[in-house]
C-alpha cells in the first residue's frame, strides 16, 4: 500500500528532509501565548520548503510581468492565517463530483483512469474532510473554455471539472480520462505535458495550494517551463505513479497521487486531541 510506504518514509526521513525548511525564508518560530482571550500558543504553519518554485521563472514568460519585484514580508501568523474554510466546503463548493466521465449523456472520448491517493500534512498526518477541486483538458488537450482556441476537438460529453472530499484517513479517488497534451504560446513549439489541475483549501489560509498532476513517462515534463519552475528532484513530487493494484480490470487504469500540504510542527494541544488536522 502506498500509504504504508509514506508512513515508513516519514519515520526514516532524516531531519533535514522533515518538511519544515524555512532556511531560505528566515525565522519560523511559534508565536507567543496570547493569554487572556483564550488564544494560546498559535503554532504557525511551515513556510515553503526547498521544492517550492520561485514566482519569477523567466522561461515561463508570463511570470516576468506577473511576479512581485519587492521581497515578500514574513508575517507572524495569526488566527487569520491558521484558520480556513475547510469545514464549510459543502456550503461553498457543493457536494462531491468524483466521476468526471459521468456528467453528460454519453461517456467522453479518451483513456479512462482512476486517480486516488491521500491528502497529508508534511508530518504525514491525514487531512480529513477537505475538498480538492479538479479541472483538466479533454483527451485531445482542449479545454471547454471559450478562450482556448487550440485546434483540437471539443468533446460534448466532457467538461473536465469535479471535486472530491477526503475521508477520515485523508483518502480520495476520482474517475476521469487522461488529458491530452496541447500547444501554448510561451515560445515556438511549446507544448504542455498532460496534466490535471488541482486546488486544495487545506485546513488554513496558510495551507492553500493550487498545483498540477503530471503523468509518468511524459517526455514533455522535462522541457516544460511551468513544471521546470520546480527544481529537481522536487519536480517529481508532481508526477503520479501508475499502479496496477488500483487499476480496475476491464475498466480503468489506476494512478496514485498523494498531496502534501504545509503542516505545523506539533500540536499545542494535549495528546488525544483529535481535531488537529
Amino acid at each position, binding site marked *: 500500500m502506498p500509504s504504508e510506504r509514506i508512513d515508513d518514509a516519514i519515520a526514516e526521513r532524516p531531519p533535514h528532509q522533515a518538511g519544515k525548511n524555512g532556511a531560505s525564508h528566515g525565522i519560523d518560530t511559534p508565536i507567543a501565548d496570547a493569554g487572556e482571550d483564550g488564544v494560546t500558543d498559535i503554532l504557525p504553519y511551515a513556510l515553503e520548503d526547498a521544492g517550492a518554485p520561485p514566482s519569477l521563472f523567466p522561461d515561463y514568460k508570463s511570470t516576468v510581468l506577473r*511576479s512581485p519585484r519587492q521581497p515578500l514580508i514574513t508575517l*507572524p501568523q495569526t488566527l487569520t492565517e491558521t484558520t480556513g474554510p475547510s469545514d464549510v466546503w459543502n456550503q*461553498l463548493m457543493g457536494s462531491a463530483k468524483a466521476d468526471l466521465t459521468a456528467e453528460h449523456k454519453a461517456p467522453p472520448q479518451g483513456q479512462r483512469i482512476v486517480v486516488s491517493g491521500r491528502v497529508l500534512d508534511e508530518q504525514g498526518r491525514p487531512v480529513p474532510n477537505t475538498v480538492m477541486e479538479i479541472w483538466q*483538458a479533454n483527451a485531445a488537450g482542449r479545454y471547454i473554455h471559450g*478562450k482556448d482556441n487550440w485546434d483540437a476537438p471539443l468533446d460534448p460529453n466532457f467538461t473536465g471539472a469535479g471535486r472530491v472530499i477526503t475521508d477520515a484517513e485523508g483518502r480520495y479517488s476520482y474517475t476521469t480520462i487522461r488529458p491530452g497534451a496541447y500547444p501554448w504560446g510561451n515560445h515556438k513549439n511549446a507544448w504542455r505535458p498532460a496534466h490535471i489541475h488541482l486546488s486544495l483549501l487545506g485546513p488554513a489560509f496558510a495551507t492553500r495550494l493550487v498545483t498540477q498532476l503530471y503523468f509518468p513517462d511524459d517526455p514533455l515534463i522535462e522541457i516544460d517551463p511551468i513544471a521546470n519552475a520546480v527544481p529537481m528532484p*522536487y519536480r517529481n513530487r508532481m508526477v503520479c505513479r501508475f499502479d496496477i493494484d488500483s487499476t480496475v480490470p476491464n475498466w480503468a487504469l489506476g494512478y496514485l497521487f498523494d498531496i502534501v500540504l504545509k503542516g505545523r510542527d506539533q500540536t499545542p494541544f494535549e495528546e488525544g486531541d483529535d481535531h488537529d488536522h
Partner: protein
Amino acid sequence: MTIEASPDLETRNAAPRLDNLDPSLFGQTPSQTVGPFFHYGLPWKGGADLVGPSDMGARPELFPADHYVLATSGVTGTPQGEVIEIAGLVTHGNGDPIVDAMIEIWQANAAGRYRSIDDPREDIAIDPHFTGFGRGSTDESGIYRFRTILPGRVPGPGNSLQAAHIAVSVFGRGLIKRLATRLYFEGAEGNDVDPVLTLVPQDRRDTLIARKREDGVWWFDIAVQGERETVFFGL
C-alpha cells in the same frame, strides 16, 4: 522443455520510480499556476457574494451553459454586520489589467470570529449565515468584486489586537504561486498599531489599505508588480 508463464503475472506491479510516492521526495507538493482556463472549474456563481444569493464571482459566459458543473450560491439567511462591497483592479508589471486572475478572500465575521474549528474562542459566536470565504474572477477589464460584511477585529501576537482586515489570495496565469496579501480599511481603529501593518515599511503600507469611494465601494487595487506594487506576505 516446457515454457510456462511467470508465476507472478497477475500480481506484479510496475517498478517504483522517483515520483510522487517516493519516500525520499516526501514533502510539500509544489505550487503550479491555475493557468488561464480555470473558469469552468473554480469560481462558482455566488462565490464572491458572502451576504446573499447571487451570481457574483463566476464567468459563465466563458464556457457553454451545459458544462456548468460548479456549485451555485450556498448563502442562506443574512449574516450579521455591516454589508460592504470591495472591488479593485488587478494589474501586472506594465500596468495592464489581469483579466484572467482569480481572487479569494478569508475573513472573520462581524464579531471577529473565524468559521473554523481552529479558532478556539468559543465565547465569540459563530454566525451560521457567514462562512468568511469568497472566490471571484476578475472581469474582462481586470476588476474583481466581493460583497461581504465588515469583519470584526481579531487578536494578534502577544496581547495585541489586529485592526479589521481581510486575507486575500491572488491566482492567475503567470503566477506560479498564490500571492497572499491583506486588505485593511482606511481610517479603521487600530490601523496605526496593527501588528502586521506596522511590519510593512511606511512607504508601502498604503498598498494594503482600501479606500471608500463616493459610491460606497471599498476600493483595493492589486498590483502584482510595478509602480505601487502591492505588499505580499510570505507564509
